[in-house]
């Protein structure tokens, strides 16, 4: 449905986007995942028509969008930090796109109510957007973009400015919403959890390039290279292969001679505990342990690796 073809954008000789190609099928959500400065936002601005491009094409349903200005593309954009109209109330913000489309009053009224209900803000119609909390502003931004029924919805780190708990909650809401609306969307984020939760497929970007596009499971199973693996948090790379932390079994050594290494640090990550073990050869190996009865820093341990947990890098 949406095809981004060979896009290159340069800022002062520097390529912000370097021959980027991306396909988004109808009803599909593609999460674009990458560190800041990798070109994710620029990619969205190109699709929206807010950014001139040096070469390449953006096709929507086979039609080249180059001659279409942003306001006629029928593409919705949820801005980072929302960019709400401060001089309009919640109603005025959500109704804006509908008014531009030239809807009748009852139509607009019905649609705005529908959206307020959808994002759980019924009763907020005439609140000034400046008085809303971060999460509420985010919902208004989403409702505003959805109101005119865009063909494609673009989201630029929509949860980026919110605190962690609120983010987790809104993330769940978004997952439900996207499933319900069957919307075609590109969701840009630097957060792995968001990308995996929302994306039917995840495109990993680095330094202006898309290095890998896969479903979350496939990406997790077969990262394209060491950098992608490390970005996903798979730090155990040994001899051209990834060792999954959950495949590493660590047990207390019976005697000094039997030990494979010494535990350096113990950090709890939610349900699992991450152990970092300094091996005899000096390398670090990370293990994820579910047990509450785990070794402590300084303990000598033996290490076994489940062969199923070793992934050869291409």
């Amino acid at each position, binding site marked *: 449905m949406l095809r981004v073809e060979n896009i290159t954008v340069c800022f002062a000789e520097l390529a912000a986007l370097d021959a980027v190609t991306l396909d988004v099928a109808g009803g599909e959500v593609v999460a674009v995942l990458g560190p800041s400065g990798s070109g994710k936002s620029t990619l969205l601005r190109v699709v929206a028509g*807010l*950014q001139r491009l040096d070469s390449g094409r953006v096709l929507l349903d086979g039609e080249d969008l180059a001659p279409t*200005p942003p*306001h006629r593309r029928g*593409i*919705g*954009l949820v*801005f980072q930090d929302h960019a709400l109209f401060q*001089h309009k109330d919640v109603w005025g913000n959500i109704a804006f796109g509908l008014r*531009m489309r030239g809807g009748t009053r009852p139509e607009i009224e019905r649609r705005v109510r529908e959206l307020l209900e959808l994002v759980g803000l019924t009763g907020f119609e005439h609140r000034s957007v400046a008085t809303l909390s971060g999460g509420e502003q985010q919902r208004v931004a989403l409702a505003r973009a959805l109101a005119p029924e865009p063909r494609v919805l673009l989201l630029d780190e929509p949860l980026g400015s919110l605190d962690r708990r609120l983010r987790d909650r809104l993330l769940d809401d978004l997952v439900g919403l996207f499933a319900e609306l069957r919307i075609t969307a590109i969701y840009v984020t630097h957060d792995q959890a968001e990308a995996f939760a929302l994306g039917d497929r995840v495109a990993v970007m680095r330094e202006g390039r898309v290095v890998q596009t896969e479903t979350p499971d496939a990406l997790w199973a077969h990262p394209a290279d060491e950098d992608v693996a490390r970005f996903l948090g798979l730090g155990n790379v040994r001899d051209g292969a990834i060792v999954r932390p959950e495949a590493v079994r660590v047990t207390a050594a019976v005697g000094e001679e039997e030990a494979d290494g010494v535990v350096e640090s113990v950090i709890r990550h939610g349900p699992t505990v991450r152990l970092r073990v300094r091996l005899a050869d000096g390398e670090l190996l990370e293990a994820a342990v579910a047990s509450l009865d785990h070794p402590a820093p300084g303990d000598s341990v033996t290490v076994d690796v489940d062969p199923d947990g070793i992934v050869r890098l291409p």
Partner: protein
Amino acid sequence: MTRPPGGGVRPHGSDPAKLWRALTYGVPLGFLAVFFVYPLVSILERGLRSDGALTSPLDLLTDPLTREVVWFTVWQALASTVLTIAVAFPAAYVVGRYAFTGRSVVRALITIPFVLPTVVVALAFIAILPDGLERGWAAILIAHAFFNVAVVVRVVGTFWASLDRRVTEAAATLGAGPWQRFREVTLPLLAPSLAAAAAIVFLFSFTSFGIVLILGGPGYSTIEAEIYNQAVRIYDLRAAAVLSLVQLLCVGLAVWVSLRLESRLAVRGQLRAERDVLRRPRTRGEKALVAGSLGALGVFLGLPLAVLVERSLATASGHDFGAYRALAEPTPALLAAPWEAIVNSIVYATAATLIALVVGGLAAFAVAGPGGTRILDGLLMLPLGASAVMLGFGFVIAFDEAPLDFRSAPWIVPVAQALVAIPFVVRIVAPTLRAIDERQREAAAMLGASPGRVRREIDVPIVGRALAVAAGFAFAISLGEFGATVFLARPDRPTLPVAIFRFLGRPGELNAGQAYALAVVLMVVTAVSVLLVERIRLRRGGWL
């Protein structure tokens, strides 16, 4: 994440865009050329030429009277600045650090003296100061402090309210006591705003006219007042012209120094929203501080005005509205009945406001638009520095011959008043235009708004409020404008400040009473227009 450059919502190079650009540059520049540059050139010519030949102005420059006037102008401006900051600082502190009920009301009320006509302020101090002190340098300094307190409280207080409390808290955890925290952390951070406020107060005091003319008395004349004396009372146009040039040079120098100072002192730092900074006073000491500072300032600002009202009602035998009733009767002090001055003032100020909004509004778009230059910005500020008396004097000598004999044209007064108001209009509107987040325009475009529609839906509503604010200020400024108007208003069509001045120039209790009564009327009209402005004022509109 940073926003990459090169957005494409605004149209470039299209015909409407070119036309718009020509309009926004052409109208303000044309207006300035005719009504500012040309009178200035006339002054220059008058000062440097006598009897048709180039003459050195050296004889006038080395004249002891000139030296005395320049010296007095400089030191009274410096002293006024120091006094103003001293008087305003406690209130700036309270407004900048504490949240309390009525905080915005306090800020609005403090602003009233600043926009009061100088003639009203001068009269208020004649009314309140004891005999003997009512004229002279002390009266001038106190009146300047009264007038400019708002500048310091608003500039410094607003800036203070955006300084992160945690920085001083960090200093405290590092062992700094209250005084050390103030000296080592707060003061350096405040310095740019203090410098900015001081520069404004210095400039206003330096070019002060009405207050000096009325409160100065013999021997206390600033350059500005002396230009008027020479031109109107002694009728030495060459001396007035040379003094104007001296004034221009001094103001230019002062502006240059203050700009240098500001850039030297500028501290970059994250500014925070007021609601994160301000907190309610907790201890009794803090509450006493808030109440005490504001109370003292309230007395300083309120008492002279209250006494002015009282004096307008005072008669030999008690209080009544006699002086007000007499405004309807013809008087030998004026060639018109005093009440006509009220009508004249309102008509002139309305016309001046319209002119200032059109010219200043277009200029603001030019200054804030793509490619807007600092040069244009600076050029538009010039009338402010060149001072109203110079403008009035320049008009008189520039527009005295056909085909440019406009001295008695009815529109010449509003044009001069507009010229004084334009810098304020630009200063209010341009920052608002600049502050519109480009993403707001982009968001509108993404929702289907065409470029023209974006301007209508985003730019105009946001600027509309700023324009309304600017209109209020332009109106208040024009109402109270005295320096230029006193040269230009026809004797049979005086404005309120001019009429008050004429009454003051005549002896007798009824004349004094009528001057007080007119001053009260002028004060009320001005205060009402300013309070209306404060209601629609943008919450973050800079110091104005």
